[in-house]
């Protein structure tokens, strides 16, 4: 793998003021390096080491789903009154992760952030597989999953249709729209790079396969023009979609009369959460990838710095949401609401609540420190914390609210069963397996955008030289 012109030391010590792409990186070199990852004959050893366990976990997911359909929803920990458990909260968690990816790839495309180019493919893969992981749950979660299609508009002899007042139905549609849109968006941005892969692939079969997916894209001006036009609009659509989906997920709760859920701030609150976990996961992905794939000169300290700043910002927004949560509970003066909140803070569920606060709000504050923002180990720790914290937050929202309904006699208690955990781990495995596969077979950096970026930088460089 060529590391032309870039002194290693500089790469290993990322700095916040790094350029988004190192001047030494030429278009040819970039193309060569990125393609060499996807097109190499046999995968890296580390890839196999990472992939095998993920595959195993995916199998576990398949197994637990099969058993769920066979045995029934009762194998989960859900009960009366806690009718929703791991399925819903993990679903929300995954959606948040996926949404973060979309924000990076779509929103920052619209605002033309340079640093996005090299990581947006990672972000989009994350969006795709995050959405898929989330997409697993809504159907599993049904008591009679084989009737899931009753939530669609479909022709039936009962003259019945779904019940459109239910936030859960909005959510159902939002999710599957989002999954579908993500796939299109991901693939669409991928076409030129697939064409590159097609043209550079060594073996005829790879050529053919990449050729199929590249659908005969050749880079003619017309193809580029339409692509830019369409991609721009798609991005402009994806941005609001991602906001909508997470708002609607928020409405699943805000739209209910259930104490602990019945808060108007949920939609924006959930979007903040989505951002937070999204940035965290992107960082968790690019930090190892840039090292393992030698992409330090395209995913530079600048990227880490920017993402960490964003992480910090969204964490602060979330902090505000938590604050308002406490305030409205106090100010609303509803007995049940207060009871639930008390239960979270000092009750049996205190570890969840305080864990959420520490991991989502406390930990990211470290990123005020400039040095930490470019310190991969530190960032990884913080991000892991945030990812767990976000899961805990959903646990707190979904479970602890349901454990203490308005009628004390119905108070209940919840804990996940082995099958709950198996399903959750399974989806994690599936997600990572997906990412790894995309690393293996798909150009993991959006080459055509990188070219534009490099060319622009070169031009700027030349201009500044001329000026000097």
């Amino acid at each position, binding site marked *: 793998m060529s590391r032309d012109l870039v002194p290693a030391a500089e790469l290993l010590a990322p700095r916040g003021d790094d350029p988004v792409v190192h001047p030494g990186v030429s278009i040819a070199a970039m193309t060569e390096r990125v393609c060499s990852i996807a097109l190499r004959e046999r995968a890296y050893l580390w890839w196999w080491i990472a992939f095998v366990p993920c595959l195993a976990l995916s199998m576990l997911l398949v197994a637990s789903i099969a058993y769920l359909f066979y045995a029934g929803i009762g194998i989960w920990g859900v009960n009366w009154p806690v009718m929703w458990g791991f399925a819903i909260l993990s679903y929300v968690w995954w959606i948040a992760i996926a949404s973060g990816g979309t924000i990076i790839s779509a929103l920052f495309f619209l605002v033309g952030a340079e640093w996005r180019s090299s990581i947006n493919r990672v972000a989009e893969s994350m969006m795709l597989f995050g959405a898929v992981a989330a997409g697993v749950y809504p159907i599993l979660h049904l008591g009679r999953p084989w009737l899931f299609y009753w939530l669609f508009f479909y022709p039936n002899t009962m003259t019945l249709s779904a019940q459109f007042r239910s936030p859960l139905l909005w959510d159902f549609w*939002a999710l599957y729209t989002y999954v579908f849109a993500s796939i299109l968006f991901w693939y669409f941005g991928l076409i030129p790079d697939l064409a590159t892969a097609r*043209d550079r692939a060594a073996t005829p079969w790879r050529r053919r396969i990449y050729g199929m997916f590249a*659908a005969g894209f050749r880079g003619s001006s*017309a193809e580029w*023009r339409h692509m830019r036009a*369409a991609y721009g609009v798609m991005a402009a*659509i994806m941005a609001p979609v991602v906001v909508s989906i997470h708002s609607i997920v928020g409405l699943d709760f805000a739209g209910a009369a259930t104490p602990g859920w019945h808060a108007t701030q949920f939609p924006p609150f959930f979007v903040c959460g989505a951002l937070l976990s999204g940035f965290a996961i992107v960082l968790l992905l690019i930090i190892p990838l840039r090292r393992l794939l030698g992409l330090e000169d395209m995913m530079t300290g600048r990227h880490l710095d920017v993402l960490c700043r964003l992480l910090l910002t969204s964490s602060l927004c979330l902090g505000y949401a938590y604050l308002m949560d406490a305030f409205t509970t106090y100010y609303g003066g509803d007995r049940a609401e207060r009871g639930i909140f008390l239960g979270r803070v000092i009750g049996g569920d205190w570890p969840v609540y305080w864990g959420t606060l520490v991991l989502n709000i406390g930990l990211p504050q470290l990123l005020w420190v400039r040095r930490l923002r470019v310190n991969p180990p530190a960032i990884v720790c913080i991000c892991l914390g945030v990812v767990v914290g976000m899961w805990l937050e959903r646990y707190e929202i979904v479970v602890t609210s349901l454990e203490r309904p308005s009628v004390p006699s119905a108070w209940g208690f919840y804990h996940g069963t082995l099958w709950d955990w198996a399903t959750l781990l399974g989806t994690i495995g599936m997600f990572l397996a997906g990412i790894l596969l995309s690393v293996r077979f798909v150009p993991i950096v959006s080459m*055509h955008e990188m070219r534009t970026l490099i060319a622009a930088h070169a031009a700027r460089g030349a201009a500044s030289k001329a000026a000097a």
Partner: protein
Amino acid sequence: MTGLLAGFESPEALRAALERFAQSEWAGTVETYTPMPPDDYASEASAGAASSADGGPVPAQRDPAPGSPLPLAMFVAGMLGFVAFFLLMTHADVQAYPLDIGGRPRFAWPAFVPIAFELGVLCAMAAGFFGYFLVSRLPRLYEPIDECASFRAAMSDRWFLAIRCTDAARLADARSLLRALEPATLEEIPA
């Protein structure tokens, strides 16, 4: 032989070549193949196509706004999707089987908005995606130009200029013009 394919090392070289063709009185279709979205200068440079009535040389026209029907198509599709599904839901709840749901109004239009929005989006995305393949006439797995060995670099780091015309004489002129530009590669596009 249906044309010529000249590969250049850099976008600048390609630009220069296009300029050159624009100034020349050579008339014919000039198409560019680039590994990254070309900026405006490279768009639809079709020289002589714009030659003046007196046949005198004119500078190549810059297509002022390189247009694409897709944005409009997506917008329309989205709107149609939104309206269609909104109406469908209204029909289902108000007409097909009106039910008393928690004492809420039958025509609960605010509740219809989210789904209508999502489905509108779905339509727009689909329109953009499939529309793209329509307008750019893809998938086209084979084109004669693929036969050129050098063309394989088109999506990597070569900036190509393809000339398409069958008239041997004008082809010869083009060839000489291109030669003068010293392209990295120069090939003939087979039939």
